[in-house]
């Protein structure tokens, strides 16, 4: 459903993503992890066609995103990190607009909008301008827009940021339901607990390079210690330096 081959993105002398090879199947809930600035958002933006790779290729739903971007995008749903929406539109109007952009037939669009607004507890605020929405509510509208055209692959960049625990749980349930329907969900997150509990497979990226990919069990084997939490594996693979942090904090106190 999703594959990349030697996917690379450079900004001048800075290499944001280097030779990334990924394979994600249908119905998978794939977690994409990495420290800040590791290249997660850049990778997702390349996969949804917002950034052009410097080299390499990417196929989404069997379609080359660079060669046939419009065809591929019709099969993709995308929820960016801190989505900027149109402040002066209401949620309902934004969803109508989004449905038209994705060529959703009008009656079907209206039916789905009502269902999604209800699902995300936004039905009674659907006519309010988005400028009055909290970050979590915007995130919900953004997810509703991404689901409106029934995409085969859903990309989410930090989807649970800004959501209250109830909404985060609701989001997790929705993503798992989508996977059960055979759709692929690819999401980046910093919250390792969510990734640990939800994902069928995981990839960890560091400084633009893939350092590990597989199920949680496979990652445990990779670091050679069974029973470790994902947090410990993550720190092991990305070089978290707890001792250094303690030393710096002690230095600040003195």
């Amino acid at each position, binding site marked *: 459903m999703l594959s990349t081959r030697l996917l690379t993105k450079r900004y001048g002398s800075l290499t944001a993503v280097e030779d990334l090879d990924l394979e994600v199947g249908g119905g998978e809930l794939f977690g994409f992890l990495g420290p800040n600035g590791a290249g997660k958002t850049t990778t997702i*933006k390349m996969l*949804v*066609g*917002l*950034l*052009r790779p410097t080299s390499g290729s990417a196929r989404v739903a069997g379609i080359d995103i660079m060669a046939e*971007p*419009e*065809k*591929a*995008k*019709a099969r*993709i749903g*995308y929820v*960016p990190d801190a*989505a*900027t*929406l*149109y*402040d*002066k*539109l*209401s949620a309902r*109007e934004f969803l*109508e*607009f*989004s449905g*038209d*952009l*994705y*060529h959703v037939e*009008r009656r079907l669009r209206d039916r789905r909008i009502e269902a999604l607004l209800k699902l995300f507890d936004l039905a*009674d605020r*659907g*006519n*309010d*301008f988005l*400028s*009055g929405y909290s970050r979590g509510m915007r995130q919900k509208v953004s997810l509703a827009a991404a689901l409106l055209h029934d995409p085969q692959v859903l990309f989410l960049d930090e989807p649970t940021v800004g959501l209250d625990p109830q909404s985060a749980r609701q989001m997790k349930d929705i993503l798992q339901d989508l996977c059960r329907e055979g759709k692929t969900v690819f999401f980046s997150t910093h919250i390792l607990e969510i990734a640990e509990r939800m994902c069928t497979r995981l990839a960890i990226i560091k400084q633009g390079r893939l350092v590990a990919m597989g199920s949680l069990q496979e990652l445990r084997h990779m670091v050679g210690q069974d029973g470790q939490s994902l947090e410990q594996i993550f720190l092991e693979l990305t070089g978290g330096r707890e001792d250094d942090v303690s030393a710096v904090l002690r230095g600040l106190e003195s």
Partner: protein
Amino acid sequence: MSARYCVASRVSPRAAALGGVNVGLLLWRAQLQMFINQTIRSGKSGRIVGTIVGAAVIVLAWSWEAIITWLGVQASHRLPIGVDPVHLLSLAFLGYTAVLIFSSLLFSLNALLLNPDLDLLLAAPRSVESVLAGRMVVQILRLFLLSLLFTTPALLVLAVANQNPLIPFVFAALYLLYPVFVVVTISLMSLLLVRFIPAGRGREILTLFGVVLALGVNLANFALNPALRDSGFGRRPNVAPSLPDIPAASASWSPSGWAGRSGAAILRGDWSTAAEWAVLLLAVSAAIFVAGTVLSGRLYLAGWIQAVPPRRRHSTTRVRRLKGAIPLLSPVLASIVIKDWRMRTRDLAQLVRFVMPVVFLFVIFGLRFPRLLSGVRSLGDGPPAAMLGLLPAWILLFSLSISLGLSAVSLEGKSIWVFAASPNSTLRFLQAKCWSTALPTASVVALAALAAEILVRPGWLWAATAVLLAVAEAAAVTTLMVGIGAAFARFDWTDARRMIHPVAVFIGMGLFSVISGVSALLLVISLALAGATGFPLFTTWLAAMTVSIGGAVAVAALGILIGNQRLRELEVS
């Protein structure tokens, strides 16, 4: 606004005021650093060149000002002019007060409503009074530097001409002191006003305020200035243009009178009198600053600054909704056109861009309408009258195409990702933007042209053709502006003013002038050709206008292709 959570401070008024000066200098240093980082240190050649060009323009303007001042000084030595310098300078300071009120209100409301750093400052271990006073200090310093920027060359020339090196220093002191009472008063007023402004509507309120002030100044000018109270272009024969006089400007109780007296005294070399009035201004300014600092802190801590919560739109009182369909347009194009229409009409700043040209057209033409109309009618039937009748529509087209067309693509701002992630080509996006801009522009232009032609009555055939020409040119020119706007699109700004790149404005205005010039030239050629060859005038005129429209369409197509190329290369990072 987190006023109720702030801890009441127990600092003395003097300490609060001094703390305000300290915070103000800190803020000023940070702003200076940001300015340097965004210009000289940006590493971007365009910005560095822009800074150098800006500096060169200032130096040129300074040279020009110095020459004009020198000529004025020489003329005043040769021709005795019966002007009271005290009253003249007092009037100048009073006029400056209007600028101070306007800029201070904008700055204060902007600082309270839009700048996110107020909470950051209030979280620092500084008293609330110091933070609010710091804002005032920044504004005073800004106005001080602006005053120096505008008048330094003149002051230096006066110092040389009068052989008095103290002149620039005394005026600099007046520039620093004079704004204090205005800035403090307006800052306090802003603290009170914020209570009545709904959250998230600050930018719109500021825009509305600016528009009301601009219109007020225009209308007041027409109403009060005796030279302009006329129905035509000409002045009244017996009325000389003059500035309204305000005797109270130089009264001994008014700050403008103190500043005027001090300035006039130093110009005639009487430094002790100059110092006396300047010291009075200093004492009053210091007292007002200290009092204002304390009072602003009290107001803030008393919970005055609590913005009105945003108004909910209830589904039971839903406004009539556009159904999302426009005849002949595909759903994608229609949805973009409707979305843009909503954004433009719901955002006051955007709405102003749309409405202001119409309002100013009324101010420019409406107040002088009868004489203009009789002048055009006197030309009789035919193309000259029909084309002159298009003048208001042409001015509207200029204004609307520049403001709407150039901002059409930038209007998306950071939400451009919505399009970039959607399964639509950039050309289709631009096509929609052309529709969303051309539809309202061509409609307004058509209405204006139709109204003008009905009033001018150049003959129905000429009138109908002229209106069609106006509509066709409106569509072509607007499309061209959309293309230019796409090529120079800025997606980082939500501020309507900054959405449009200055280079795009320059190119847009230039091309509009070329199209207008060529159209006028073609009209003259068609008239001459008809006279010289005996061809029917309508035929030559229509041919000329067809060539004019064809040229505009060709340039517009080129603009769209260039804009499309830019959008194709766009990466949403």
